[in-house]
């Protein structure tokens, strides 16, 4: 696929118009994962608007976004940075061999308190 085709897919899947961003940075200011986001939410939106998707697809940000919707809540322009991050992550994980978690990595980190909800949500977020 060409870069342009990827951008079109991500825009469509995210359901958000990144061109509406006015670069105020409120999304990044509110992001609880800020330190672990190598590309901050406002940068993420801006890079997609510029069509720079390779750097987004290779980012740590797509794995560290908490989907907590704080950025979406604070955006004064109705842009949904979390949905953009998810659309990029979906685009990555839908490719063969690109799942974010591997089944064999799970048993060693499972303790007796771990809720099913954690396993289900992580698999839904990171794997296709």
């Amino acid at each position, binding site marked *: 696929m060409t870069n342009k085709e990827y951008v079109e897919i991500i825009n469509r899947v995210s359901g958000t118009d990144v061109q509406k961003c006015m670069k105020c940075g409120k999304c990044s200011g509110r992001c609880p994962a800020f330190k672990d986001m190598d590309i901050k939410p406002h940068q993420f939106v801006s890079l997609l608007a510029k069509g720079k998707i390779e750097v987004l697809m290779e980012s740590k940000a797509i*794995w560290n976004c*908490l989907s907590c*919707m*704080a950025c979406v809540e604070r955006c004064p322009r109705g842009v949904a940075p979390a949905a953009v991050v998810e659309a990029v992550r979906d685009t990555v994980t839908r490719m063969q061999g690109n799942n974010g978690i591997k089944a064999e990595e799970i048993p060693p980190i499972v303790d007796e308190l771990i*809720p099913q909800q*954690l396993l289900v949500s*992580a698999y*839904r977020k990171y794997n296709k």
Partner: protein
Amino acid sequence: MVKISYYPGCTLKTKAKDLDVTARLCAKALGVEMDEIENWQCCGAVYPMGTDEIATKLSAVRALDYAKHNGGKLLTLCSACHNVIKRTNEDMKKNDDIRFRANNYLQLDEPYGGETEVLHYLEMLKTVVGFDKIKQAVVKPLNRKIGAYYGCLLLRPSGVMAFDNPENPTIIEDFIRAIGGTPVVYPFRNECCGAYVSLKNGNLPKEKSRKVLTSAKEKGAEEVITACPLCLYNLQVNGDNILPVKYFTELLAEALGVQV
């Protein structure tokens, strides 16, 4: 006795039985029968934001459609189930493409279009029972300082969830007052605990959970309550036992003198 269709969800049948059992018993004591819907399936635990995601939304639509024909309301208890089911319901109401494709697959007797009202247990306590009635039913007022932990899922996105003010919510504080406790308002009560990232990058939830509990403790809370099994897990396991964390229904049962 008011009867309401109830969606328990995967974790409430396993690791979070305390949440399910105490909620049912307390509801009964307050005149509400939680009628577990038939053949429910796991909601998926996270709302799929991709506009082309359909299969991952179907279990929520099935539950919603069942409730549509069984009283018209669907009661949820786990914050994650509530978030997934309510947001999916909004899609079925307002997103023509998702509604068309979900109905095209499901082939229900009558297409589902978001008719069911999704009601969280806390909303049920407030609107169906009433906090005043709960106050009257309390036999053992809790008399301690309790921090409400809202997290993300009940509040955001507020345009869809319409649960409470997303920046300054009050419903759990009102609940705490009703059961005789003193609510402690602290800055991190609507900040994420670290959620599913626990499985990918354990340091992030550790830092987030400690911040939440430290924030509550600094403001004088003696314990923290939540409606979410994953929040409970993160706060307990990653939060260094800074404060005890319980389900809000456990405190309700204690205050009502309900024997579990």
